[in-house]
């Protein structure tokens, strides 16, 4: 247990297990850099923290720059450690995008994990650039009109050595990607879809089921881009054929945040997913 039980995460929140699975692979010689987010709260205070490795709390937009500096400092002391940014979707794709892009462009020797719960959860479920089309948040009461910002692709366009998507429901695929990333030098990026029971409006028992359905319906493809080469992984390898994918509606209907979507809107989202897979078919 590298991330200890009895922390402040909501019941059913996948973050403690996601960090635990990460640290199981990167080991004791890891430094976590965490910008303002739900994880800042989960990491506790001076009464005690759940992490068994050092955690550096960072201002919202600064985590990749701080991690770059920590890695340089460790290098100068000849300390070999994995420096990992652990950031939410808001910290990654909106407010921290400039420093993320800077670190990626400089090919800093750090790992970056974005746990994507598709909104600003810590401050009470406001929309982010990574909130998907149709989703309710407190600032999109009728459902978001814009599409989800494609951050893994944007990072990949920087030409970094490793980019991957992952899911806690496919925990061994996730850990295999962390292991690969750990052994690569340079900027490594992993994007985890991270279901949030209160923010997505589902019962806390369904976290893993929903994470799994995201992959089975194809709305969350599992892949990696290693030195520019794209490869589907795990279950997603079998989903190129549309008939193998479950309808996106099966994923949507378990979540209250999508309950106001009309059948036309669901169709639009399904079409976007299908078009994305057609693109994948061309490059895979």
């Amino acid at each position, binding site marked *: 247990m590298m*991330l200890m039980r009895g922390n402040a995460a909501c019941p059913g929140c996948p973050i403690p297990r996601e960090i635990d699975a990460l640290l199981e692979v990167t080991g004791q010689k890891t430094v976590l850099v965490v910008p303002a987010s739900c994880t800042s709260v989960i990491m506790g205070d001076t009464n005690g923290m759940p992490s068994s490795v050092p955690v550096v709390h960072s201002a919202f937009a600064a985590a990749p720059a701080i991690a770059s500096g920590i890695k340089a400092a460790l290098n100068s002391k000849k300390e070999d450690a994995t420096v990992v940014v652990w950031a939410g979707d808001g910290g990654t794709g909106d407010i921290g995008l400039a420093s993320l892009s800077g670190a990626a462009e400089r090919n800093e020797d750090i790992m970056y994990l974005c746990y994507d719960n598709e909104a600003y959860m810590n401050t009470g479920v406001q929309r982010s650039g990574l909130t998907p089309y149709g989703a309710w948040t407190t600032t999109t009461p009728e459902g978001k009109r814009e599409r989800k910002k494609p951050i893994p692709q944007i990072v990949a366009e920087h030409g970094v050595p490793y980019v991957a998507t992952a899911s806690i429901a496919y925990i061994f695929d996730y850990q295999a990607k962390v292991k690969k990333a750990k052994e690569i030098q340079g900027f490594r990026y992993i994007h985890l879809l991270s279901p949030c029971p209160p923010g997505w409006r589902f019962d806390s028992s369904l976290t893993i089921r929903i994470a799994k359905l995201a992959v089975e319906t194809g709305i969350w493809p599992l892949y990696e881009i290693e030195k520019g080469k794209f490869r589907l992984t795990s279950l997603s390898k079998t989903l190129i054929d549309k008939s193998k994918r479950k309808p996106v509606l099966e994923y949507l209907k378990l979540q209250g945040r999508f309950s106001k979507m009309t059948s036309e809107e669901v169709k639009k989202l399904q079409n976007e997913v299908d078009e994305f897979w057609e693109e994948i078919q061309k490059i895979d």
Partner: protein
Amino acid sequence: MVNVQEGIPIARPKIGSSGFTGSWRITKPVIHYDACTKCRLCYFYCVENSIDLQQDLYPKIDYDFCKGCGVCADVCPTKAIEMVREVK
């Protein structure tokens, strides 16, 4: 672990950094061991890292910290985990 001098106000690793979170529970997962096949899915997916594997590889829930989310019961393929209403 890096050694930091005592007295410096930094957070140190601790089980139960938010106290005994078992007190948050409304329902309690109870494992019916006769139906358990030791598949370990509950152990892998307990989002709170609150399930241990015993020496005989049967799972055991740490009720001091289990938050009663019900994820383990949902992922158990043999329905060996029952969520029981807990009134305290």
